[in-house]
């Protein structure tokens, strides 16, 4: 029982990173009705870019590496937007989908080349801190990860609901044509969406690196799948859904790992997805039913 609760708590804390990735997918879907398949890879790529700082400044503190990853994420997000969504007409959804897959492959390969395929260790903060709450341990580094993600989500919500850009973004996600007719530059909004989700993704990637301790390009595949699962479970286009689903998946995944081991763990996460697809295909927070 103790193990179970410990697993859940660790999993939920880590799940905050999945929540961020899920938010990234779901926000792009909400605004542009497209899936950016390169998102998780870009997030990991940004985390790697954070490591570049250490090349330049050997003794840089971890938080600086995280900040670097954060910024790199935004840049990568913008690049993905340019390569996949700016020029390709949106009336060719298959083409945009394929091009994001191409970007996914490209980013992964760049990382592999840059690191010669060797996993890189990632700085962590507070990894030596252990808080004890009765019989349970709360790892300091996981708490930091959770905290950082929560702050990021709060900032995102503030951006969406308190700023003009956020307002424009919400307008475009509901009625792109009408938004354009109101003078909103849809292309700019789309680009900014990618930059913002990219920033979040870079942060998520850094946090994943920090809690796992190493980064490897092999992370992007499973992360893409898990991120998409989180998005679907939470409801495509719903940010609160992605948050809840991310924590849920994180918790479940850890529990599955406790009882069935690492190799089978992902299989059960798939099953979780299928359960949702059967019983609640719209996701936890399904979009309101429309008129026609």
């Amino acid at each position: 029982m103790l193990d179970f609760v410990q697993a859940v708590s660790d999993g939920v804390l880590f799940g905050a990173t999945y929540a961020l990735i899920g938010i990234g997918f779901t926000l792009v879907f909400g605004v542009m009705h497209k899936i950016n398949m390169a998102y998780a890879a870009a997030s990991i790529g940004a985390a790697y870019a954070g490591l570049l700082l250490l090349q330049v400044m050997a003794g840089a503190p971890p938080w600086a590496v995280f900040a670097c990853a954060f910024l790199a994420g935004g840049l990568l997000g913008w690049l993905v937007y340019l390569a996949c969504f700016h020029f390709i007409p949106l009336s060719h959804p298959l083409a945009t989908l394929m091009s994001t897959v191409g970007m996914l492959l490209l980013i992964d390969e760049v990382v592999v080349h840059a690191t010669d395929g060797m996993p890189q260790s990632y700085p962590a903060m507070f990894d030596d801190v252990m808080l004890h709450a009765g019989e349970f341990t709360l790892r300091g580094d996981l708490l930091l990860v959770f905290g950082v993600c929560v702050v990021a989500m709060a900032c995102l919500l503030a951006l969406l609901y308190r700023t003009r850009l956020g307002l424009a973004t919400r307008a475009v996600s509901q009625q792109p044509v009408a938004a354009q007719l109101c003078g909103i530059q849809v292309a700019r909004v789309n680009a900014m969406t990618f930059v913002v989700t990219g920033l979040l993704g870079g942060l998520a990637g850094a946090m994943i690196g920090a809690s796992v301790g190493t980064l490897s390009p092999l992370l992007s595949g499973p992360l893409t799948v898990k991120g998409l699962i989180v998005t679907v479970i939470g409801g495509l286009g719903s940010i609160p859904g992605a948050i809840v689903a991310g924590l849920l998946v994180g918790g479940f995944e850890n529990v599955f790992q406790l009882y069935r081991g690492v190799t089978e763990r992902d299989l059960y996460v798939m099953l979780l997805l299928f359960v949702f697809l059967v019983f609640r295909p719209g996701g936890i927070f399904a979009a309101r039913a429309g008129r026609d």
Partner: protein
Amino acid sequence: MLELKGVTRHFGGVRAVDGLDLVVPEGSIFGLIGPNGSGKSTTVNVVTGLFPLTAGTIRFRGETLDDLPTHRRLQKGIARTFQNIRLFGRLTVWQNLWVAQNSPEDRARRGFIARWLGGSRSARDEIAQLLEFSGLAHKADEPAASLSFGEQRRLELARALAARPKLLLLDEPAAGMNSEEIAQLRERILALRERGITILLIEHVMELVMGVTDRIAVLNFGQKIAEGAPAEIQADPAVRKAYLGGDSA
């Protein structure tokens, strides 16, 4: 032929159609009019089965339609055209009609295995005839998206006819037409009645409605506010009020 009793369709809080009673006699041309948002298109969607009913029943030739899926209703003999044309743009004119041949007669003719693969000769003749009737024979191998607007409208109608319907629901077929085109449409609708098809005409364009229907029902806010012969409807003050001085015939 078609009987609606207490038909109701809600979308969340919106009552698109509310307790509608309607009887469309066999062989008639029945008009359904009303201001925008009065529930006309929803009525069509509910009769064809695209939306389930919130309440009420629909009977077609004595049979309750219940949860029967759309494609099965077509096979029973209910076909429709769409307000905004929904042709298969990338398919040719011929293919648009070919795909629509799903009436029991055509399915039987095709046989169990042959059904998926080719068409029998008489099915081909049917398509050729429909193309003649619609004046589209010369465009048979063109992609539907390349047709002019008027031609697309004619193809939309021809496609509905390819299914050999007994009841045809026309959803605003005259939208965007000039007087000459409306007159041609009127002739085609009357010709369809000659063929034994019952017609439910949803329309805004009074020129067409008044000139071709036997009986009209008027909807407003999902409810029927009047029903009668065209002349009666034109004179009805409730109708006038609903339209706020709308199109005159």
